[in-house]
């Protein structure tokens, strides 16, 4: 039987990890509502089996792996045109804050969003984990269920594609 203490522990983890999952999923799928579904699905699976999974060293990392797999799967099957996702993103960003700052933020976000849409789902996931979550390559490999050299390839190609999409040239220093 689930106890109040079990639920309190889950609630604490949820409040800590869920916003990160949402951001991560959003970077991969490119849509706020879909990201919400992905993050909720991962957390639902965690909660449904909380008595067992709470004994893991890092149950939050387990949920993150579930969310990444689901987000990559959704992205691979996505039919939403990239332009639609970008438009939604701009509306979201510009919905808060003063108009000038929001427009500037929207422009930056839109550039990156458009660039991200040129990457494969696995490249998006690797880039998001590296740049958004600041995870080391070894941990990204664990999350993506591949080895570290594969992650480096994803990051290298992803970064090169992003630079091209953003109209920048990579130098040796980059």
């Amino acid at each position, binding site marked *: 039987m689930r106890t*109040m203490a079990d*639920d309190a522990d*889950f*609630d604490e983890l*949820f*409040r800590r990890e*869920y*916003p*990160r999952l*949402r*951001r*991560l999923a*959003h*970077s991969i799928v490119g849509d706020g*509502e879909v*990201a*919400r579904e992905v*993050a*909720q*699905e991962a*957390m*639902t*699976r*965690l*909660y*449904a089996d*909380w008595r067992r999974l709470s004994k893991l060293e890092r149950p939050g990392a387990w949920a993150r792996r579930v969310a990444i797999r689901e987000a990559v799967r959704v992205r691979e099957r996505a039919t939403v045109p990239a332009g639609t996702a970008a438009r939604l*993103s701009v509306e*979201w*960003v510009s919905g808060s804050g003063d108009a000038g700052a929001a427009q500037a*933020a*929207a422009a*930056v*976000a*839109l*550039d*990156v*969003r458009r*660039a*991200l849409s040129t990457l494969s789902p696995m490249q998006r996931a690797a*880039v*998001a984990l590296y*740049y*958004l979550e600041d995870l080391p390559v070894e941990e990204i490999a664990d999350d993506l269920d591949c080895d570290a050299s594969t992650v480096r390839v994803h990051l290298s190609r992803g*970064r090169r594609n*992003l*630079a091209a999409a*953003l109209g*920048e040239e*990579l130098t040796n220093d*980059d």
Partner: protein
Amino acid sequence: MTIDERLREGLRLDAQGPDGAEIERDLLVVRARGGRVRRRRAGARMAVAAVVLVVMGLVATSLIGQEEETNVTTSRDSTWKQILRPLPRIEGVGGFAIQDFVQGAVNVGARKPSEGATDEERAAYWDQVSSGLPAGTFLPLKTLSAEQLRTELGFEHSQVARMVTIDASGTGRPGLHRLAILEGDFDPEVIEAAVKADPVWSAQLETTAHSGVDYYAWGDDSMVIEKRTPVRTLGIGGRLIVFDRTTVAWTTSTFLAEAAIDAWTGAQDRFADDTRTQELIDAVESRHADWASITAAQPGKSALGFGVHSGSPTELILALHEVSPNAAEQAASSLRTAVEDGRTDEVAYRDQFAITQFEVNGTLVAARLTYTGDRPLLDAISARRVPMFAFDSAPTARDPGP
């Protein structure tokens, strides 16, 4: 700014996370969904045990069919899938209404009472999540106390997650034909004990069966027994079907009891079997409506899904399935004109409504509008001379109320 800095900044700005209130709402959703997963697993374990017993020749096989996965068509992982499984498609009935109390709690930010909560605390929660529920004479959840429900039916409000209703009265059969399907967390043993101990109705109680599914019946079909009690305000004994621990049905007639059982077992067509109807359901559910009225799609006719997302502000959700892409574009244009511009001699709806999401996809038009008026939402829509939306010729969904 280096490419790495630009990427970090862009990702951070683009992938904004939820705010505190949204996190709390989503936590409620996750806990509700996770609880359902656990119950389904428990049900599946019971089914496996039943299979073993059948192999051993010890029990009947009828238990197994109740655990089979429904073949209702869904284009996504729908929370409403379970409750629509026993909802039969009845000739002459235009559609159905759904009240989702779990989604209502999420939408208004209500927190479900703990197991040790008092009746008063549970009643306060129920008041919050059922704000859109009309008072009625058929299973009047709005006005019943927890004790009254427990006495006559063996469960109470806090166990009910969502409810779907249809009214088949006046479709060529004499008598009152109303059906409510309830999804939640029910204990069949507690229900059995309650109906057998009911001081007023237990004398009329019979257990009968249809297609291998037992159900409780009180008196002849639609017979008024002249005993008016809190649940049976019309004095009709009714029929109660306990499909499993998550789904029960309450109806005034044998016809609908048997139709619901047949829908549950797959022997009868269901509203949700139809692809266009399912797309309307998906369009409304995926926009987190806590109340919805869905018109059953018919060949060559347009159909409407109409939902309400309670909260501040309240949101109106519209989904219209047209007969052709051209008709969908025209309907979308009419809706936009009515809301944003008005007609030449009319007042636009924009004083109280604002379109926040709009989508035309083939024959499907879906829109989300915020409502900031003081009157009840349905009054605000129906009181204008220019209708906000119109659709072609399909019968209006009959919502009997609870």
